[in-house]
């Protein structure tokens, strides 16, 4: 079992299974064989993440996470699953039945479609589109429609408010998301995710050529992650489901399995965007050091995914929720100019000769506008000392 066979174990089993299939059905069965593992692995990852999230948040707040169901609480998702399956599915009378039913399906469908272009391991990608990134953002933009359908069809003020907030937030954060990935397209010259990972899989004296180790790559990675958190309505940007103000945003009128579908859709969206972040900036399935390449490639992908999920949970445990105007200001007044400057620095990086001068120029070109922008934006809001007026 040489390391290469372990690495290609899934590809070999797939071809071995394909051998038994009559050639007429070959394409369909090969498609099914490559799609089914994704449909199994990522919902499992969703189950594990719910436990990790609740235990992580607990430990951050100096308390235990769920530790009753199963050893250390790790069969909690099974309990949650059964609970959400057995719960009664209440549909409001005035709701619009068809759209109410279709919304969660469209959300989960869009979330799953996003995985078609993610290279999970060496030549382990479902379909290698040469316009892969564009496909991902096209599918990502369908999620907003599903969110709106959910909010509008339940005909309740809270859900409509939540849906409007969610759609406004997702639209205004889709632009920085796309522009942050334009940087990578410029550097690699191709939209296909497999080619992007190929370019990052080389090493110079055991350090990988990941894009995150370049100034514009690191800035792009940060901008991409902030936009990805906003795109999947998580942590500091979870205004659409602000429990304190509008109870639960667009999925308030859903219960039982459809409610669980919304969560599945949200988490799958989070995995898809962080998977894309790994592919673009953290070198997809390539090993962090040249002497570690004997480890199977898919392990690296899922290891990086777990690290990103822990960072998501960490940020969720720390940062308070942003107000709607702060949210919009951040998107339009800070992220958009920063991504444009980032594209400019990537171009500069491309044309300047390699060397320390290039590093200094690019980092300066990124850091100075960042500080100037944030100082300028803070100027407007004169944060005075908070004064309280108590009732006489």
């Amino acid at each position: 079992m040489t390391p290469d066979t372990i690495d290609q174990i899934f590809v070999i089993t797939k071809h071995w299974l394909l051998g038994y299939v009559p050639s007429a059905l070959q394409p369909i069965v090969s498609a099914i064989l490559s799609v089914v593992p994704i449909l199994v692995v990522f919902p499992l990852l969703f189950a594990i993440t719910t436990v990790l999230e609740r235990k992580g948040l607990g430990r951050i707040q100096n308390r235990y996470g769920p530790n009753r169901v199963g050893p250390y609480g790790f069969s909690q998702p099974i309990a949650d699953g059964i609970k959400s399956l057995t719960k009664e599915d209440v549909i409001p009378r005035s709701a619009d039945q068809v759209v109410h039913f279709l919304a969660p399906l469209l959300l989960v469908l869009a979330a799953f479609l996003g995985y078609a272009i993610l290279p999970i391991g060496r030549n382990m990608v479902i379909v290698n589109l040469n316009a892969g990134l564009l496909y991902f953002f096209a599918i990502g933009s369908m999620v907003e429609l599903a969110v709106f359908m959910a909010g509008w069809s339940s005909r309740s003020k809270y859900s409509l408010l939540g849906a409007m907030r969610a759609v406004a937030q997702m639209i205004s954060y889709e632009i920085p998301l796309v522009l942050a990935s334009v940087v990578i397209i410029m550097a690699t010259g191709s939209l296909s995710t497999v080619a992007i990972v190929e370019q990052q899989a080389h090493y110079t004296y055991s350090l990988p050529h990941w894009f995150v180790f370049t100034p514009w790559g690191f800035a792009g990675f940060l901008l991409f992650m902030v936009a990805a958190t906003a795109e999947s309505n998580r942590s500091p940007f979870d205004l659409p489901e602000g429990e304190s103000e509008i109870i639960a945003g667009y999925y308030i009128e859903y219960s039982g399995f459809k409610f669980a579908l919304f969560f599945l859709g949200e988490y799958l969206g989070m995995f898809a965007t962080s998977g894309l972040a790994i592919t673009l900036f953290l070198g997809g399935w390539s090993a962090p050091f040249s002497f570690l390449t004997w480890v199977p490639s898919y392990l690296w992908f899922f290891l990086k995914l777990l690290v990103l999920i822990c960072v998501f949970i960490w940020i969720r445990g720390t940062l308070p929720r942003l107000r709607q105007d702060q949210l919009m200001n951040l998107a339009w007044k800070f992220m958009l100019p920063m991504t444009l400057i980032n594209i400019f620095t990537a171009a500069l990086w491309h044309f300047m000769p390699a060397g320390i001068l290039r590093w200094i120029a690019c980092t300066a070109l990124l850091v100075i506008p960042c500080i100037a922008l944030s100082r300028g934006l803070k100027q407007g809001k004169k944060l005075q000392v908070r004064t309280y007026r108590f009732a006489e």
Partner: protein
Amino acid sequence: MTVIFLILAAITIAGTAAAMSLRSAIHCILALTIGLVGLAALYLLLGAQFVGFTQILVYVGAVAILAVFAIMMTQGPGKTIQPILSTNWPAGVLVATAVFAILAWAIHSTPAHSTPTQPDVSVNQIGAALMHHYVLPLEIMGLLLTAALIGAVILAMPEKKEPQ
């Protein structure tokens, strides 16, 4: 090959026909998105991947949401029960069928010639063509989009009440 085409054509026609005939405006938009996704699938069938995904991104992602927002802002509360068709709707339908008849006759009479090769075009070629041969239209497109952006914002902005 034609089976897939027929299915996708049926989806597109069903979606667009529903978009033009449903009573509630938001249902029309959702039906329209189904039609447009069917159309995008047709583009993929024709081998134009880049255009198919742009179509989804632009239409399903942006124009549909824009139309839905516009409807939410203009539609009063509750169901508007006034009739959905304008007064002289028979004339409209007549004109439409006439146009279709002429087009169908024109298509029918042209000799069917088709090159069997599926031209596989990669995104690099499109990018190269955009940047070299069509760079002027690209710049003008950028200008036009910014003008449209500013224009739409100014149009939709509430005017400041000048003191009469």
